[in-house]
């Protein structure tokens, strides 16, 4: 039997946004083909969250030499460990290059589910403080949408995904439709109380808002607090494509999921000026195949979707498909992090946590909210949390023998850390292009990334270390250690902005519905669409934008406009 090559819709990528596009489009009646470059995932075999340390060869320290050879970039990511490294790409097969003196860390996952398997699950709404920021500051282009446009779609995706958190009623960080919050630990409660008192309510500590179930929802079970979500979750308690959206799409009977399908380029029909489909290299047979559809959704991740468009140039679009603006590939952003502080919080020595909460605390942005900071635009939020030191503290101590063993049987002091994530400004000078020499394992040109922090971002990181230390001092911490590490862009794994939305086709790639200005049946709904970066984790916004774009696309198809 020959393979079906014609569908109503094609979705490229099966990660956070591809999963949502698959769910929405199939539920709205479209026969949908999802193209995934990597392998299929079978939770019962591939998930390893309950494999204990004593059953892995290097006891959690990782197969260092193999990682250095195969995953020198991926293995620098905190989540890429001895268990979960299989959910990250081979750097050998998936090369990229960077401009001289401008390192960039590109952390990637190629398998069904993409990076939704290993993501950090932190989920925050944007506000008009974010959507109006570019207009207010005269930077980049104005967002073509405001909070009111996306709010109902946040409601919609949150009720399906399941977001745990605490409602605060803050303007700069709107509340989600929350499942019950996870509990703060003793030290976090203490820090919350003292910070609130000391800073007059301007700085608020709350439990992290995360896409993890705290009660059963849609045939998914509440979290059982085993800890390492990035290794999978057999109870489907955290949100991922595999745990939630792809099963929903599958249920419609209209989903065709095709793994090992490396998207090569979008096929453009110059007569109709529409996308005709997607050209694919079968990762196993190496054959070049073509699949056709009425509408194409690119959900391959910010840089991959952009790379695909850059590799789809035509006589009409010589610098990349849908790039009449010249902005495709430009304005790449990430969040600047690695600024903060850590300290010992005396008290509660007789108290401990039970269970491993896969979530930290959050302090919403407080800079440039009510008053203007002289040194920088925008702001940052703090993640972090309270924890007790474990047996590892014994390594650098000199003790030995039965007493020492007894000492390590109990936990060490309570520590608390603040860890900032700051907004990155869009700049035309930060961009990606196709490398003219390097290709990946399938012969597709690699990306060359040109990206560096600006003064504004560096000022944010500096301020993170100062305010974090100041708060730790205010709550009575000892042994305060500020840090502001020189990490390159990319490492927050929040890359976005290379196919930005905007009101004007001359300065942006997508319109207010993630639809390419130049090609009406082509949508990009991953992080590429972002016109600015906010300081909050972006995935929830990608989900909402994807669901909204699918709704719009299907309406347009019904009207015959697509």
């Amino acid at each position, binding site marked *: 039997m020959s393979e079906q090559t014609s569908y109503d819709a094609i979705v490229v990528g099966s990660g956070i946004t591809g999963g949502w596009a698959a769910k929405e489009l199939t539920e709205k009646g479209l026969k949908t083909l999802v193209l995934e470059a990597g392998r299929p995932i079978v939770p019962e075999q591939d998930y390893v969250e309950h494999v204990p340390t*004593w059953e892995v060869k290097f006891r959690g320290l990782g197969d260092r030499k193999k990682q250095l050879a195969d995953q020198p970039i991926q293995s620098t990511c905190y989540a890429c460990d001895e268990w979960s490294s299989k959910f990250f790409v081979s750097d050998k097969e998936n090369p990229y290059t960077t401009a001289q003196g401008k390192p960039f860390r590109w952390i990637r996952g190629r398998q069904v589910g993409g990076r939704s398997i290993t993501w950090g699950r932190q989920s925050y709404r944007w506000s008009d403080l974010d959507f109006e920021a570019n207009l207010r500051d005269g930077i980049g282009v104005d967002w073509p949408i405001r909070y009111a446009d996306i709010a109902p779609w946040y409601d919609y995706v949150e009720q399906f995904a399941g977001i745990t958190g605490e409602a605060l009623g803050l303007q700069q960080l709107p509340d989600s439709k929350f499942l019950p919050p996870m509990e703060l630990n003793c030290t976090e409660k203490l820090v919350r109380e003292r910070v609130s008192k000391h800073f007059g309510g301007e700085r608020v500590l709350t439990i992290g808002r995360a896409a993890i179930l705290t009660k059963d929802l849609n045939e998914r079970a509440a979290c059982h607090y085993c800890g390492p979500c990035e290794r999978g979750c057999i109870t489907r308690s955290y949100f991922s494509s595999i745990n939630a959206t792809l099963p929903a799409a599958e249920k419609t009977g209209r989903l065709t999921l095709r793994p090992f399908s490396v998207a090569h380029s979008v096929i453009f029909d110059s007569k109709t000026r529409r996308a005709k489909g997607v050209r694919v290299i079968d990762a196993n047979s190496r054959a070049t195949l073509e699949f056709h559809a009425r509408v194409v959704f690119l959900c391959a991740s910010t840089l991959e979707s952009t790379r695909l468009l850059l590799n789809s140039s035509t006589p009409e679009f010589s610098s990349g498909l849908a790039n009449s603006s010249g902005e495709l590939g430009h304005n790449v952003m990430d969040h600047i992090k690695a600024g903060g502080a850590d300290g010992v919080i005396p008290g509660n020595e*007789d*108290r401990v946590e*039970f269970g491993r909460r896969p979530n930290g605390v959050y302090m919403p942005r407080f800079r440039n909210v009510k008053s203007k900071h002289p040194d920088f635009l925008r702001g940052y939020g703090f993640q972090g949390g309270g924890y007790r030191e474990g047996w590892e503290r014994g*390594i650098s101590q000199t*003790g*030995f023998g039965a007493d020492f063993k007894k000492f390590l049987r109990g936990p060490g002091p309570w520590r608390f850390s603040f860890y900032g994530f700051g907004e990155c400004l869009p700049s035309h000078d930060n961009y990606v292009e196709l490398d003219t020499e390097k290709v990946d394992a399938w012969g597709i040109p690699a990306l060359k990334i040109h990206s560096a922090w600006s003064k504004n971002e560096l000022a944010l990181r500096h301020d993170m270390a100062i305010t974090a230390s100041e708060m730790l001092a205010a709550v009575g911490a000892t042994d305060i250690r500020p840090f502001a590490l020189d990490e390159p862009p990319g490492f927050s794994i929040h890359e976005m902005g290379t196919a930005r939305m905007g009101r004007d086709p001359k300065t942006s790639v997508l319109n207010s519905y993630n639809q390419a200005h130049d090609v009406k049946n082509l949508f990009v709904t991953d992080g590429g669409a972002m016109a600015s970066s906010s300081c909050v984790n972006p995935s929830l916004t990608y989900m909402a934008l994807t669901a909204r774009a699918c709704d719009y696309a299907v309406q347009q198809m019904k009207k015959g406009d697509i």
Partner: protein
Amino acid sequence: MRRREVLQILATGTALQLAPSKLLMFLREARALIDTSSLRTLDAHQDATVKAMAEMIIPRTDTPGATDVGASAFIDLMLSEWYDDDDRTRFLKGLADVDSQTRALFGKDFVDCAAAQQRDMLRTLGEKMIEESAEQSRVEHEFPSDMSFYPMLRRLTLTAYYTSEAGATDELHFEMIPGRFAGCQSASPIKEVPEQK
């Protein structure tokens, strides 16, 4: 117990006649002994020295110790497959230096020293570790101070122990599936740990 005896007991099924608690202990010992045969980096003397030091750091008490969990086999694995050549060379040199020092001080290799002499040696190594670590912040070294022999041995020993099944579950009461989260509950008092011989 000798390796040959262990193999014999395993082969004849005599082990199954042991009481459950003894059987568990026996199997642990058996594993540690059998692992010795497959050492790839450490020779028998080096292995004996590493075993003795690791057991001194984490001795068997009311719970298993470093030897019970096969710490030296893990250390051999790490030296063979995980560390770079330079680190392995430095570790083995540090290990040899321990014998040079005990021979100079007590006229014997570390493993042949009396318990009190061995403890003196470990204390000396600990003092040197603290000095080097303090020095690290002032003077530039060719390698980080925690990659000296003794901090490496401590890291490897503690990792081998606390990530082993006995270390994680018997010692630290690790539960794979807690089923709930409580942020602030009272800590169970730490039990006394008598040293057993």
